[in-house]
């Protein structure tokens, strides 16, 4: 960590014990001052401000695709910018690239280590990065030739002194940001493998990171086993803000789409929202009935919904403004370990220790017919109505009304 040198302090005579006591006193004073400053501006709760906002009502989500193929726990996943490809990594060392539309596996790589805890898609869609117990982050260029051995072109980029917990490309394929069990985050140049910046400040394993949306500048947030979420300046390596309200490890952090806030998911069974300009926690998403840790969080496109994957196999969907849960999604048969919104916000994918990934979107109440949908209505003797799209010069207006069941 680099700090500007205070000339007064540099010329002081060093008398260790005395200085230590003074410094301790000064740090205590500053901590109190920090708390006071934050408290002064705490004039209202978020959910109070949101009282006048319309509630969200019934909320149905449907699984549209189930990706099967991993032989063990899925630990991480990421979307390609093309909104259809997904990369996922697993405990057995496999990294798979899927076409989520067709559910076909396009590429598979076997890593030399187990527990591949981190994977990421390059912005160009031409490479993936991954790592885990090997303490490294490696980049694999994706070949169009399915027969080509991807492992041959592997490039080792990041080197930590403990496991890699998360990785993310920055705005280009040229730089990767990593977080590690060694308590640090680091920014690397992909081509040369050079360390560009390191970020020190967490007192224990760093478990997650997220880059600020590009419009808001060069910062990122990290969460760790020290229960802290830190916001960092990528250029200087400085920690600019720190939040410590969780009661256990922070497993996941994700920026609010505007970049003004971020959410976190923790082993303390809560998700929280921190506003960066108010410099404090502004919401807690929790219920007495939720006692298992939240492993992964992501927002919907507008930031109104927060999806949280939990260790009790469920996904809870929260109304970010009102602080209430709008839906609980079942389906996975083991812990949900990873969860991400698709790039255009039409769907989200979750990965689980049950070896599968699921792509879900919104279920619909009414499905209007378009001029391209041509139907033939068949009435069977057992009084079932069956509608099938069939080429025909006859058009029928189809109104399908589905009875929806609330969570």
């Amino acid at each position, binding site marked *: 960590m680099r700090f500007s040198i205070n000339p007064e302090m540099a010329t002081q005579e060093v008398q260790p014990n005395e200085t*230590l006591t003074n410094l301790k006193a000064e740090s205590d004073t500053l901590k109190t001052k920090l708390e006071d400053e934050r408290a002064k501006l705490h004039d209202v709760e978020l959910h109070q401000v949101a009282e006048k906002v319309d509630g969200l009502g019934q909320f149905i989500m449907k699984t549209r695709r189930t990706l099967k193929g991993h032989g063990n726990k899925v630990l991480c996943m990421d979307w390609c910018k093309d909104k259809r490809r997904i990369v996922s990594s697993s405990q057995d060392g496999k990294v798979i690239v899927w076409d989520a539309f067709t559910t076909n596996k396009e590429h598979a790589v076997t890593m030399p280590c187990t527990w591949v805890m981190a994977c990421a898609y390059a912005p160009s869609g031409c490479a993936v990065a991954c790592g885990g117990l090997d303490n490294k982050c490696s980049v694999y260029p994706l070949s169009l030739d399915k027969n080509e051995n991807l492992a041959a072109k592997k490039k080792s980029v990041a080197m930590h002194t403990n496991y890699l917990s998360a990785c993310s490309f920055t705005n280009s394929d040229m730089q990767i940001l990593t977080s590690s069990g060694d308590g640090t985050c680091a920014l690397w140049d992909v081509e040369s493998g050079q360390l560009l910046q390191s970020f020190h400040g967490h007192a224990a394993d760093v478990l997650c990171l997220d880059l600020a949306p590009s419009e808001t500048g060069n910062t990122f947030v990290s969460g760790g086993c020290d229960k802290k979420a830190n916001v960092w300046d990528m250029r200087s390596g400085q920690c600019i803000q720190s939040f410590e309200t969780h009661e256990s490890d922070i497993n996941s952090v994700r920026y609010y789409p505007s970049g003004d806030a971020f959410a976190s998911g923790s082993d303390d069974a809560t998700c929280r929202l921190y506003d960066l*300009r108010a410099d404090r926690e502004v919401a807690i998403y929790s219920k007495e009935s939720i006692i298992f840790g939240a492993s992964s969080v992501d927002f919907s496109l507008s930031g109104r919904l927060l999806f949280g994957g939990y260790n009790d196999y469920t996904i809870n969907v929260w109304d970010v403004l009102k602080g209430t849960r709008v839906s609980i999604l079942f389906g996975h048969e083991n812990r949900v370990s990873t969860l991400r919104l698709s790039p255009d916000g039409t769907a989200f994918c979750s990965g689980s220790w049950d070896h599968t990934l699921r792509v879900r979107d919104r279920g619909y109440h009414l499905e209007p017919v378009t001029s391209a949908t041509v139907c033939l209505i068949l009435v069977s003797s057992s009084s079932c109505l069956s509608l099938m799209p069939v080429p025909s010069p006859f058009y029928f207006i189809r109104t399908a009304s589905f009875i929806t069941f609330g969570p």
Partner: protein
Amino acid sequence: KKENMTSNSNVSNMRRLVEQLKLEASLERIKVSQAAAELQQYCHQNAAKDALLVGVPAGSNPFREPRSCNLF
């Protein structure tokens, strides 16, 4: 001498902590009411585009293919 070195590193750690706290204390903050209003405004402005929030016509979602459906 070893004791001295340890105390020196404790001192430098404390100095770092104090500098960090000074930095954090000097941040310009806004009131929660203002921050909350702006979060709410962002949600409102982008709600219409949020497919998971409001839903979109069936045809425009690539994960939903036209299928046969049964009404019972």
